[in-house]
């Protein structure tokens, strides 16, 4: 009997792809965590001194350094830091005395809620606008959309937040000025969420519009689009059936690409609307010089960034099988 020549099966390729991405994520995670460790310890400005002020006695500073473990050799500190991060022991807040990880997990859902709704809003506005702009390339709708999206991404998030607050909360009184994020009913919760989500969502829409437009333009230039047109298929059908699905693949990566911007803008949005979340936590930690909390905040942001990038990469591979073979 003749043996069939065996090549890698689809399953093999898929698991290979997942493993490679996973390996890369782990390496990035370690690299960034190492960076966090050194940023906190190598930068001039001793955390203990920064917390206690210039007037503190040497003895008090030494005591705090010992409490924080800063008097031990760097390699020992490094191993303890890494072990702590992996086992969920991120130290205790110097201000509240509660475990850092608990404080973070308490406000994390509020931030995730805000960013998820904003991203959804951004996609709902941005994708159709980008497609519309691309289809009407170099005509009025294209110019207007391009200018509007450029204006949208020129807004520092706190500037747009202040303007929204001025118009809709103070002048028109449609929404609460302070968004507690802890409304009892669903309606109250949504009212709290509305302005912050609109603020963040509009900025994300500007980015998504631009990516959708350029991605759609690329697809519109493909041969199969011309073929479909030559066969006499209605243009509308070509756009929605043939082009949209193909052009959406790069749009998925926008989440990974603009995550840093999304995170930075969510911090500013939370501050302006006085909404609980990671943003308020990090600013509070800055003002009170809560050094363990700051370190914990950097760890959680690192975890979020690495995790989201991993998920984006894997989704990309799932939507577009060609990616896996690279």
């Amino acid at each position, binding site marked *: 009997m003749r043996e069939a020549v065996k090549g890698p099966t689809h399953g093999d390729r898929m698991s290979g792809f997942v493993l490679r991405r996973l390996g890369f994520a782990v390496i*990035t995670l370690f*690299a*960034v965590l190492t*960076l966090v460790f050194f*940023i*906190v310890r190598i*930068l*001039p*400005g001793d955390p203990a001194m*920064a917390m206690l002020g210039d007037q503190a006695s040497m003895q008090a500073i030494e005591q705090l350094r010992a409490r924080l473990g800063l008097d031990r050799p760097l390699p020992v500190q490094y191993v303890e830091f890494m072990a702590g991060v992996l086992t969920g022991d991120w130290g205790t807040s110097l201000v509240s005395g509660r475990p850092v990880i608990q404080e973070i997990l308490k406000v994390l859902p509020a931030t995730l809620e805000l960013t998820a709704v904003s991203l959804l809003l951004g996609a709902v506005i941005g994708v159709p606008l980008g497609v519309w702009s691309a289809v009407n390339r*170099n005509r009025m709708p294209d110019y207007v959309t391009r*200018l509007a999206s*450029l*204006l949208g*991404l*020129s*807004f*520092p*998030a*706190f*500037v747009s937040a*202040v*303007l929204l*607050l*001025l118009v809709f909360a*103070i002048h028109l009184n449609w929404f609460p*000025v302070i968004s507690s994020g802890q409304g009892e009913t669903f309606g109250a919760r949504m009212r709290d969420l509305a302005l912050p989500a609109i603020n963040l969502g509009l900025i994300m829409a500007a980015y998504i519009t631009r990516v959708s437009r350029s991605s759609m333009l690329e697809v519109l230039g493909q041969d199969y689009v011309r073929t479909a047109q030559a066969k006499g298929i209605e243009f509308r059908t070509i756009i929605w059936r043939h082009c949209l699905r193909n052009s959406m693949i790069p749009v998925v990566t926008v989440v990974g690409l603009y*995550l*840093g*911007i999304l*995170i*930075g803008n969510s*911090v*500013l949005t939370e*501050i*302006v609307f006085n909404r609980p979340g990671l943003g308020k936590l*990090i*600013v509070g930690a*800055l*003002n009170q010089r809560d050094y363990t909390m*700051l370190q914990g*905040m*950097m760890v959680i*942001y*690192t975890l979020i*960034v*690495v995790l989201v*990038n991993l998920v984006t990469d894997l989704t990309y591979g799932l939507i577009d099988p060609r990616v896996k073979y690279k």
Partner: protein
Amino acid sequence: MTTPAHDLPRSYWRTTVAAAWAGLLTAFNTNKTSWVGLALFVAVCLMAVFAPLIAPHDPLAQSILYRLKPPSAEFWMGTDYYGRDILSRLIHGARISLFIGLVAIGIALVIGSLIGLIAGYYGGRTDIIIMQSMDVLLAFPSLILGLIVVAMLGPSVTNLVIAIALTAIPPFARIARAPTMTVKEREFVEAGRSLGYSDLRLMLGHILPNILPEILVMGSLWLATAIRVEASLAFIGLGVAPPTATWGGMIREGFENILDSFWLALFPSLAILVVVFALNLLGDGLRDAIDPKLRGES
């Protein structure tokens, strides 16, 4: 022909550099909006340079009599909590924003481009190691990184420049690397190498002038980001210390009185928006025109 052999690479090189810069001019002319962006930005720069001559009042002069006055003929943009003229503070505030932005991006441009040049020129393992570490830096949200660095070093003009430059180095490395990889294959680099020029001379003297227009275009976009980040840090409370006028700091102060004196936060908000938008307008049009992927279509 009497051109000496050792002058050949130089004349080749001159043509390519001239072409690269001519491309930038063409880009300007195909995108009229870039001129608008440039004009706006230059106007703001002039305003910053001649601030003491233009500002109608002393930006630091306090007056209890004129506290929180709405816009009027004497104070076009009103006064703040200490009775200081908002318009004068706005004009002087442009100096801080532009200075920090320009210096930080200048530093990031030089360091980042050098890193990108080295990665692109040598390729192979050097390239992989350099670009992977840049990607790691890039993975961290720039506002958070800037926030931590300024918080650790303390808010001052120098430290803000360091923090913002640090976050902008990786993108410049990426921007410089890609064109370096194509340009290093060109004849004039090959010719220079066969004449025994050093790698450094080839990189700085021959490749860099060719890729500089592209780097400068991205520089204008990153300058917009730098100004946005500086204002954001000032808004959070990590800006240059008061009473120095900074746009982000003015919005922060104005935000405390937003319920009854909206003009405090409104005008500096618009100022930031105008500058960032002008720079984006300038850079975006040029990038479209200069990007080889889009070149040839219109």
